[in-house]
């Protein structure tokens, strides 16, 4: 079985890494290429860059950022945010991405998943689901969490799998940036719903919580942002903690 992956996530806005709480109150967290290079050196298993503004004018800035980041890292690079067409996806891949993460654009146009999977392979297509808890289960949200798509997050994941997505990046909107732990109930429900590689995101604050996401939530990978950006923890430190607990880690 593959090792559990630790994946630093760089939320990028106007060429800078930012991080907020539940996608708001954004704070500057540094230069993307510098941070990515540091995480690669420290043993990151993969890097994710999400363009959280994703306006047209920022698209070129993003591609420039992707090029700069891709130049110095030799682990997989996933890029997401505002990729609405095969042309957008191709541009991201040509800038150096190995995979793309689709969220709002896939909710608006589910067929984009199958077109992308046919053209570039399922391993290239990550379905990102921003889930918010409601009285009737978890809903998939779009537009950086501001709109409720009306779709059930678990049903959407199954549909995405059938359309050809190769991986699920599941963010708990309720937990994002709080450091209070992943939503384990959501993770376990998703793990039971789809048998695709599952990346847990939103809420990591302590090494124990990573272990929970892997052991209780069934995650194949954990996405990390605040925990690393403000140097509360380092990747080697987290990896040795998980190794000691018997998790297979690279």
């Amino acid at each position, binding site marked *: 079985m*593959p*090792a559990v992956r630790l994946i630093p996530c760089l939320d990028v806005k106007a060429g800078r890494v930012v991080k907020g709480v539940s996608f708001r109150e954004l704070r500057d967290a540094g230069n993307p290429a510098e941070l990515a290079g540091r995480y690669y050196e420290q043993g990151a298993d993969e890097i994710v860059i999400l363009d959280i503004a994703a306006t047209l004018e920022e698209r070129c800035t993003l591609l420039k950022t992707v090029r700069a980041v891709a130049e110095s890292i*030799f682990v*997989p690079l996933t890029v997401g945010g505002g990729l609405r067409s095969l042309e957008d996806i191709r541009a991201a*891949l040509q800038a150096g*991405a190995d995979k793309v993460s689709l969220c709002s654009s896939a909710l608006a146009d589910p067929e984009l998943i199958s077109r992308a999977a*046919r053209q*570039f392979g399922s391993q290239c297509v990550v379905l990102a689901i921003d889930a918010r808890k409601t009285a009737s289960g978890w809903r998939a949200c779009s537009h950086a969490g501001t709109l409720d798509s009306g779709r059930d997050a678990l049903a959407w994941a199954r549909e995405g799998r059938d359309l050809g997505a*190769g991986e699920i990046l599941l963010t708990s909107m309720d937990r994002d940036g709080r450091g209070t732990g992943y939503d384990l109930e959501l993770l376990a429900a998703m793990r039971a719903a789809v048998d695709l590689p599952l990346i847990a995101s939103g809420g990591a604050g302590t090494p124990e919580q990573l272990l929970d996401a892997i052991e209780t939530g069934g995650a194949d990978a954990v996405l990390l942002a605040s925990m690393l950006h403000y140097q509360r923890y380092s990747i080697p430190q987290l990896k040795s903690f998980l190794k000691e607990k018997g998790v297979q880690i690279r």
Partner: protein
Amino acid sequence: MIGIIDYGAGNLFSLQRALRHLGRPTRLVGSELDWSGLRGVILPGVGSFAAAMSGLRQKKLEKPLQDWLGAGRPFLGICLGLQLLFSGSAESPQETGLDFFAGRCSLFEQARVPQLGWNRVSFTGPHFLWQGIADHSFFYYANSYHAPLNGGPPVLGRSTHGRPFPAALAAGEICAVQFHPEKSAEPGLRLLANWSERCRP
């Protein structure tokens, strides 16, 4: 000069970048005319078996590739590029592969697909590809299908995903790896450097 076969799909940039980082010049080979002066050829692979074979045929790359393999010149297949060397694959049952090795590739059973992530490779013995790389090192995979377990060319290393499968194969200078060395950090870069050494004049 190392040629990277470009059949119109997939991300060739990671591979070009990794070889550039190692100081090895590459050229994309996208037609039957681009083969002069090459010392080694890499067949990368992303996408489906059938799409790759039809891309190779459309661009008239299948024949020169088979001639190259037949001559036993330095070759490296990566991921789907390994699978294409076989006669066929369960991924595209109607399609014939390059047919350099006998056998068909099959889908992982009793394991999550696609296999996405880092897996250990256990070497079956010393080989020039493994020089300077520790046995049981991790390499990055992104695949749902694997090479036949028996009857194919000599296996250089195995990984386990549900069951053991060939991670790397070689017959003389014809090498192929199921993982992505260009995405596998230091061990991957070392493997590419080791292979590139075979392409020196």
